[in-house]
C-alpha cells in the first residue's frame, strides 16, 4: 500500500515545523534552568512524584478535571476536544496496526488512513469495527467543536460571563482548529461515498452523498476535501507553537517540573517560560477579577498579563494594575503561579537598587517592653488605633507580658516593597526586622496585619520564633482559658482578607472567635472565593476612585447577609470596607475586646 498523495504535504510540513519549534523551545528553556532547578529534576526524577505527574497529565491535560469544577459544560467541551483528539490518534494507530500488522507506517498514515486504506477489505479486525469506533470518536470531538461555536454565541451558558479577546494569530489558529474536524468528517464521508468503507456516521453521510451526485463530482470533491483537511491541519500546526495552543504540549513538562519541586520565584527565571506558554487563554481568570467587574479594566487580567509578557510587550500599566488577591489563581485550571509571575515581572520593571536609601535603619530600635511574646503592629494597625488599643487590652486581660516591636514606630515589614517589585529594598527591611526580633529574644511573634504575617512566614528566617496572626493567638488564649469571651446576640458577617485566607490559609480561627462573641453569617462569596477589599497594597496603578468602587461592591455583598456589623481581620481591609458600607466595620480584636468578661 502506498502512503503518498500530494495533499499530505501541508500536513507533513506543519508537523515538521511544529515539532522543530517545540523541541527547540523546550531544550532551550531546560538548558537555561538554574543549577538548583536542574538538581531538583535529577533528585526527583525517579520518585513517586513522576508517577503522580503521569496521573495529573491524564486528568488535567486530557480530561480537564479542574475545568469541570468551573462549569460541567465547559469542562466537557475541553475534554471532548483534548481527550477525543488524543483517542483519535491512539485508536488511529491501533487501527493501522490491526490492519497492517507491524509494518512501518509514516506519521501521516493513520491520519489519512481512510483515504489510503480503500484497497483493504472493509471488515472488522480483532472483532472490532474500527470504522465505527473512529466515527464515534470523531462525533465526540465534533460535539466539542459545536460547543465551542455555541460558546462564541452564548458564553454565559457555559459559565463564562466574559471571554478572552484574542489576537490575530490566535484567531487564525482557532479558525483552523474549528475546520479540522468538520473537514475530516467531510473527507472521510466522501471517500466512503465512493468506496463504501465508512462507519455508522461517515458511511451514512457517504451513502446520502452517493445518492445525490454522480461519481465524477464525488471524486473531484473527495480530492478537494482531503486537501482542505490537510491544509487546516498544516495551518493549525504551524501556528500552534506561536499561539495559545502551545499550551497543549507545554502543560505536560510544566506538570512534571512542578511535581519535581520547581517553582517561580521573586526574580524571573527560565522555568517561567513553561508557565507562560502553558496558559491556554481560556479566560476563566477574567470573571473573578474585581478590576473587571467593578472598576472597568478589561486588559489587565492574568490572561492578558501572561500573553503580553510572553510576547515581550508587557507594559507597567498592565503589570502594576493587579490587586494580587489570588482569586484568579484559585480558579486557574492550569494551576499557574499567576501572582508570582506578576511579581517577578514587576521586579524586572522596577527593581533599581539604591544602596543608601535605607541606611537610616541602621541602629534604630524604638521597641519597648519585655516579654517572650512580641507584637508587631505594622503600619496599617498603627493607623487604626482602635485595633492597637484592643490588642493592648487583650494582652492585659490574659496577663501576657509583651515586647512591643513598633508601637513607637518601626521599620516596614517589607511586603509592600516586595509587591511593588523592589525586592532588594524589601530584603533590607526584612533583614533589619529579623535582627531586631532575634536581639530581643522573643519566642512568639504576633501581628494583627495579614500583610506582615505573610511576609514573616514566607520570606523571613525566623527559626525558633513562632509567627502567629492575632486571630490564631487570641483563639489560643481563649482555648487555654486565659481569656473569657462572653457571648452576645449580635449578628456578624466576616470578610476574609486575601493575604490571610488565600495567602496564609487561615479561615477557621477568625470564624471560631466570632462565634464566641456572637452569631456569624457568611456572605455569598466567602473563604477561598472571598472578594478583595480593593485597597490591596499590591496594586500600584489603581486610583482611589477604582478602590472605592470595589469597596462599595464588597460592602454591598457583605450587607446582603443582613448582618449588624462586618468583621474582618486586617487593618487595611477594615479601612477599605468602611468606605463602602454604612454598617460598622470592626477588626476581630475589637470584637473580642468588647466581649471580654
Amino acid at each position, binding site marked *: 500500500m502506498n502512503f503518498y498523495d500530494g495533499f499530505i504535504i501541508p500536513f507533513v510540513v506543519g508537523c515538521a515545523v511544529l515539532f522543530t519549534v517545540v523541541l527547540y523551545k523546550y531544550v532551550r528553556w531546560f538548558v537555561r534552568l538554574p543549577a538548583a532547578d536542574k538538581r531538583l529534576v535529577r533528585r526527583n526524577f525517579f520518585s513517586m512524584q513522576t508517577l503522580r505527574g503521569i496521573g495529573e497529565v491524564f486528568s488535567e491535560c486530557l480530561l480537564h478535571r479542574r475545568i469541570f469544577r468551573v462549569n460541567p459544560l465547559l469542562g466537557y467541551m475541553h475534554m471532548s476536544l483534548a481527550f477525543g483528539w488524543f483517542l483519535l490518534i491512539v485508536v488511529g494507530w491501533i487501527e493501522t496496526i490491526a490492519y497492517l500488522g507491524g509494518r512501518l507506517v509514516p506519521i501521516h498514515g493513520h491520519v489519512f488512513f481512510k483515504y489510503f486504506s480503500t484497497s483493504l477489505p472493509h471488515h472488522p479486525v480483532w472483532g472490532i469495527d474500527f470504522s465505527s469506533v473512529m466515527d464515534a470518536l470523531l462525533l465526540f470531538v465534533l460535539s466539542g467543536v459545536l460547543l465551542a461555536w455555541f460558546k462564541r454565541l452564548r458564553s454565559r451558558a457555559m459559565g463564562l460571563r466574559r471571554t478572552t479577546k484574542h489576537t490575530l494569530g490566535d484567531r487564525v489558529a482557532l479558525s483552523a482548529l474549528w475546520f479540522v474536524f468538520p473537514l475530516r468528517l467531510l473527507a472521510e464521508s466522501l471517500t466512503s461515498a465512493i468506496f463504501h468503507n465508512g462507519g455508522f456516521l461517515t458511511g451514512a453521510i457517504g451513502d446520502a452523498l452517493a445518492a445525490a451526485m454522480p461519481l465524477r463530482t464525488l471524486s473531484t470533491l473527495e480530492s478537494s476535501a482531503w486537501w482542505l483537511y490537510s491544509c487546516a491541519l498544516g495551518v493549525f500546526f504551524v501556528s500552534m507553537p506561536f499561539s495559545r495552543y502551545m499550551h497543549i504540549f507545554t502543560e505536560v513538562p510544566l506538570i512534571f517540573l512542578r511535581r519535581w519541586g520547581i517553582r517561580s520565584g521573586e526574580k524571573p527565571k527560565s522555568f517561567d517560560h513553561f508557565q507562560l506558554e502553558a496558559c491556554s487563554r481560556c479566560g476563566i481568570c477574567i470573571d473573578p477579577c474585581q478590576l473587571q467587574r467593578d472598576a472597568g479594566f478589561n486588559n489587565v487580567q492574568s490572561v492578558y498579563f501572561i500573553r503580553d509578557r510572553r510576547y515581550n510587550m508587557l507594559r507597567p500599566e498592565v503589570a502594576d494594575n493587579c490587586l494580587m488577591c489570588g482569586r484568579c489563581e484559585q480558579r486557574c485550571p492550569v494551576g499557574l503561579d499567576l501572582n508570582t509571575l506578576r511579581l517577578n515581572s514587576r521586579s524586572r520593571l522596577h527593581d533599581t537598587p539604591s544602596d543608601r536609601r535605607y541606611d537610616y535603619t541602621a541602629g534604630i530600635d524604638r521597641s519597648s517592653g519585655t516579654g517572650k511574646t512580641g507584637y508587631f503592629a505594622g503600619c496599617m494597625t498603627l493607623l487604626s*488605633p482602635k485595633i492597637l488599643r484592643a490588642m493592648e487590652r487583650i494582652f492585659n486581660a490574659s496577663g501576657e507580658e509583651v515586647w512591643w516591636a513598633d508601637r513607637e514606630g518601626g521599620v516596614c515589614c517589607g511586603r509592600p516593597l516586595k509587591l511593588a517589585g523592589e525586592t532588594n529594598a524589601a530584603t533590607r527591611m526584612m533583614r533589619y526586622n529579623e535582627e531586631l526580633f532575634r536581639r530581643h529574644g522573643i519566642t512568639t511573634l504576633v501581628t494583627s496585619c495579614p500583610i506582615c504575617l505573610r511576609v514573616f512566614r514566607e520570606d523571613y528566617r525566623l527559626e525558633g520564633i513562632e509567627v502567629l496572626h492575632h486571630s490564631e493567638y487570641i483563639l489560643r488564649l481563649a482555648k487555654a482559658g486565659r481569656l473569657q469571651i462572653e457571648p452576645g446576640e449580635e449578628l456578624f458577617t466576616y470578610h476574609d482578607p486575601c493575604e490571610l485566607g488565600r495567602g496564609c490559609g487561615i479561615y477557621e480561627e477568625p470564624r471560631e472567635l466570632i462565634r464566641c462573641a456572637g452569631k456569624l453569617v457568611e456572605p455569598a462569596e466567602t473563604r477561598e472565593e472571598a472578594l478583595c477589599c480593593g485597597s490591596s497594597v499590591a496594586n500600584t496603578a489603581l486610583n482611589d*476612585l477604582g478602590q472605592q468602587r470595589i469597596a462599595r461592591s464588597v460592602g454591598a455583598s457583605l450587607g446582603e447577609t443582613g448582618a449588624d456589623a462586618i468583621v474582618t481581620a486586617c487593618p487595611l481591609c477594615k479601612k477599605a470596607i*468602611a468606605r463602602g458600607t454604612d454598617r460598622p466595620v470592626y477588626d476581630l480584636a475589637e470584637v473580642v475586646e468588647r466581649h471580654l468578661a
Partner: protein
Amino acid sequence: MSKKVIIVGGGVAGMQAALSLKGQGIDSVIVEKSDRLGGKLCDWHKLFPTFTPASEVLGPLKEAVERAGVEVRTGAEAERIAPDSVLLKSGERLSADAVVVCSGFDLFDARIKEEYGYGIYDNVYTTADIERMMNEGAVALPGGHAPRRIAFLHCVGSRDEKVGQRHCSRVCCITGVKQAMEMKTLFPQCEVYNFYMDIRMFGPGYEELYRQAQEEYNIHFVRGRISEASPTFDGRLQIKAEDTLVGRPLKMSVDMLVLIIGMRAGESNGRFAQCPGVGCASNGFLAPADLFSGSVLSPVEGVFYAGTVTAPKNVGESMSEGAYAALRVAEYLGARS
C-alpha cells in the same frame, strides 16, 4: 389666591430667603428638622474674620423672621421634594407653588480618620468642639489644666480622596486661623501650631488675619499634614508629621490636637435628588442649573437652592444666596400668574 413657597431648612440662608420673599409680598413656610431656627450657626461662638459673636448675626435674623410672621415648622424633616410639594418624614405632604432647598451641609465625622484618634484619645477635638466649649464658657483639658502646646490640623475631611471628600471646604482654613488666635488669647503661654497643606484665604480680611496670626500672635504654620497621633505615657499626644518645606519628618508632643473638619454634602441631598431632574454633583452637593447666572436654580422649574446645599460657603455668601433665591422665586411666580 396668594402663592405659597416652602423653604426646606431654617439656617441663615433659609431665614434670609423667607424674609426677602416676605419683602416681595410672598408667604413662605420654613420646614426645619431640628427644634430651633439657626442651623449650625447656633453652635458657633464667634465668626471669622471679625470675631463677631454668632449671636449678633443670628439674633436679629431670628427676630426679623418672627416679626414678619413667617410660618415656621420645627421638628419637621423633609423626606422628598417636588416643584409643587414637600413630603415630610411624618408622612404629611405640604403643597407649594415653589420650593427653596436650604438644607445646608453636614460636618465631616472625624472618627472616620481613625489615625488621628478622635473618639479614641481624650485630647483630640474638632473645631466644632472648640466652638461648643467656648460657648459653654471654658476650654479646658480633661484634667482641668491649661494646655501648653496645641496643634491644629487643616483639611480633615477636605481634599482627601481617601475619605471620598475631594472638594475644598473653603471656610476651614480661616476657621483654623481664627481658633488658633482665640486659643492664643485664652492661653498666652501656649504654643500653637497649624499643620496645613495649602492655606486658602479667599475672603475679605482673611489674608490679613493670617498675617496677623503669624506676626502678632506668634502662631506657627507648618506645611505638612499630620500622619498619625498616639497617646504618650503622661497623657499627652504624640503627633507625627513631615515639614515639607524643610523636607524632614517631625514628632511633637501636644496637649491638644484640634482637627479642622470640613463640610460634607448634606445627608438629605440623596433623597432630594430622587426628584426627577434634581441631581447631585460628584462631591454629593446638589448641582445647580449652572454656576453663573443660575447658581440658585435647580435644573427643575420651581425648585430653588440657597446656601451650602450646593457647595461650601461662608455665612455672608449663604445669606446673599437666600436673598437672591427669593428674587428668582418671585420672578418665577410672577411669570406663572
